[in-house]
């Protein structure tokens, strides 16, 4: 059984202009101890997918349909209190901006201790000791429990966020662009730390727009476009031979320091998700568009990979 099995998930935002289909019919599975990256442009729905999994989509967003089976339970059906007990305890989350993700008025230790005490019956002293051990685990001196967030740098704060996210030993860690707000050197270290967290029998979902980073670190990559999951498969395969023209475009638009090749920019913009193009949502930007693309492509299985594109329909299905 998979650790996380998202099936036909639809998360829509209800605005005055209409219904925005941020996550539209997405299915994705995550195995235990697996490192999966979800990549895509800003606004493609990757963060909404992550927030849907821990059921923290902000109003006016709503999970409309689908299943999120985690460890045998469908999270969509859980009560708010059951969900609260699961958050932090079984699914941890690291956020994009470490500068604003910690409460400025509480000591680092207090924030960790509060998280532990909400879920486990331990006395405060024990929880404080656990807090400094956690900080040491993420590469910070244990006495930083007595520090306030403003006394730490961005990288240090992101380490604290990771310590907070794994403080209850969750089986799944979701990291929503954890390195976007950090400089390159610190990025590397935070990514190493995330990989370390995987060693502790934990699956990781990394949300990122950095394809190179995803290819470098993860077991599998899922590519999202305009609310759709358009390709999902093993990281090295997907990076070397992308199937979907959008994946190809994404890889082609990333400069490579080691290889001398031209950058091929992708033309056009992400479509309006309230009024998306008919048929395939990528068609207006697709260099390989065909007549059949006026109909929505189904999801095809090609070579152990999942791809939502008509190109693979003729031979396979």
């Amino acid at each position, binding site marked *: 059984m998979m650790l996380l099995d998202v099936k036909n998930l639809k998360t829509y935002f209800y605005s005055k202009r209409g219904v925005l289909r941020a996550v539209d019919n997405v299915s994705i599975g995550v195995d235990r101890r697996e490192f999966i990256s979800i990549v895509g442009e800003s606004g493609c729905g990757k963060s909404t997918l992550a927030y849907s999994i821990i059921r923290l989509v902000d109003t006016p967003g709503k999970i409309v349909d689908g299943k999120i089976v985690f460890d045998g339970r469908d999270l969509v059906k859980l009560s708010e209190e059951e969900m609260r007990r699961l958050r932090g305890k079984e699914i941890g989350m690291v956020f994009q901006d470490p500068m604003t993700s910690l409460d400025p008025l509480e000591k680092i230790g207090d924030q960790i201790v509060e998280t532990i005490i909400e*879920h486990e019956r331990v006395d405060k002293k024990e929880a404080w000791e656990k807090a400094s051990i956690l900080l040491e685990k993420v590469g910070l001196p244990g006495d930083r429990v007595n520090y306030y967030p*403003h006394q730490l740098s961005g990288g240090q704060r992101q380490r604290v966020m990771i310590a*907070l*996210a794994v403080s209850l030993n969750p089986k799944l860690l979701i990291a929503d662009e954890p390195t976007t707000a950090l400089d390159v050197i610190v990025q590397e270290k935070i990514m190493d730390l995330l990989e370390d967290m995987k060693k502790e029998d934990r699956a990781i979902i990394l949300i990122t727009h950095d394809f190179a980073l995803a290819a470098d670190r993860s077991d599998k990559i899922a590519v999202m476009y305009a609310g759709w999951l358009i390709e999902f498969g093993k990281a090295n395969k997907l990076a070397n031979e992308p199937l979907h023209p959008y994946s190809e475009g994404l890889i082609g638009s990333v400069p490579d320091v080691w290889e001398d090749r031209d950058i091929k920019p992708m033309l056009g913009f992400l479509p309006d998700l309230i009024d998306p193009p008919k048929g395939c949502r990528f068609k207006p930007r697709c260099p390989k568009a065909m007549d059949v693309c006026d109909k929505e492509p189904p999801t095809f299985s090609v070579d152990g990979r999942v791809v939502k594109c008509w190109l693979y329909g003729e031979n396979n299905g």
Partner: protein
Amino acid sequence: MASLKAYIVTRALLVIPTVLILLTVVFFILRILPGDPIAAMVGQKVPPEVVEKLREEAGLNKPLIVQYFEYLFNILRGDFGKSMIWGKRPVIDEIMLRFPATLELTIFGFTLSVLIGVITGAIAAFRRGSKIDSSMRIYSIVAYTLFIPWFGMLLQMLCGVYLKLLPIGGRITPGSEPTTITSLYVLDSLLTLNFNALIDSLSHIFLPALVLGIVLSGAYTRLLRNNLIDVLSQDFIVAYRARGVRERKVVKHAMKNAFIPVITLMGLQFAILLAGAVLTETTFSWPGMGTFLLERIQYRDYTSVQGAIVFYALFVALISLIVDIVYALLDPRIRY
């Protein structure tokens, strides 16, 4: 925390020049104003030589600069001088007689204003965009613009004259004062378990404190609403929820964060509170510093007015110092 001590000492020392400047301004403005205490006291029909003798007694015949420095040195010694009219009682005694009434009114008014402001602001923020939110926002603007004497009289008419529920003036029914311990009637009644006096003093303070509280609450309503909405949308609130922290505790953290600017406002509002108290006291014949100050300005009782102003200034300085300390204790980023 050593730096906090240094900060408190610096702040306390800064009170000295503040009070000095205020005192100088008040001293000269009073003397620039037409009329003087002798003229106000004796009127027009007294022979000039008598007036001259009275002026000499009061020290008003000396050059202004000499009067100023004499007064300054007396103040430094803690001597507020004597009243220039009616019995020449020591100013400090007269102030001390009236200060408890003002203190009691400001405590009640201040508490009510923060309470009303925080409750309405929090309700508005949590019901953002609803009709309740709109009504709270209208409330805050209306409350802020109310003119105290007008609003006070309205409540006097309603609760006192028509409904006959509450007294319309004074601190307590004469004769039912509790045994003096702190001179704060409500507190003294509680301490001596004198329930008649407690009910009596509470019924007297209710209307003036409510007027003061409502008028000053508007600013808190707005500030807390806007801050709470801002804080509730911040990442660390989502992060708390994502760690499974109970909603009740998340709200507690949000309130604590949203409260910091409110504390700043409390310090700033305190001077306005005292000014409002002057108006409230005159409207409700409250025998405090406000009525005293107004009366003595009319009689050009220089020493009394100066004394009262210095006293007000020290009071405001003390409160803003306390506010700053609370602020520093609450927000680790501000600890100097």
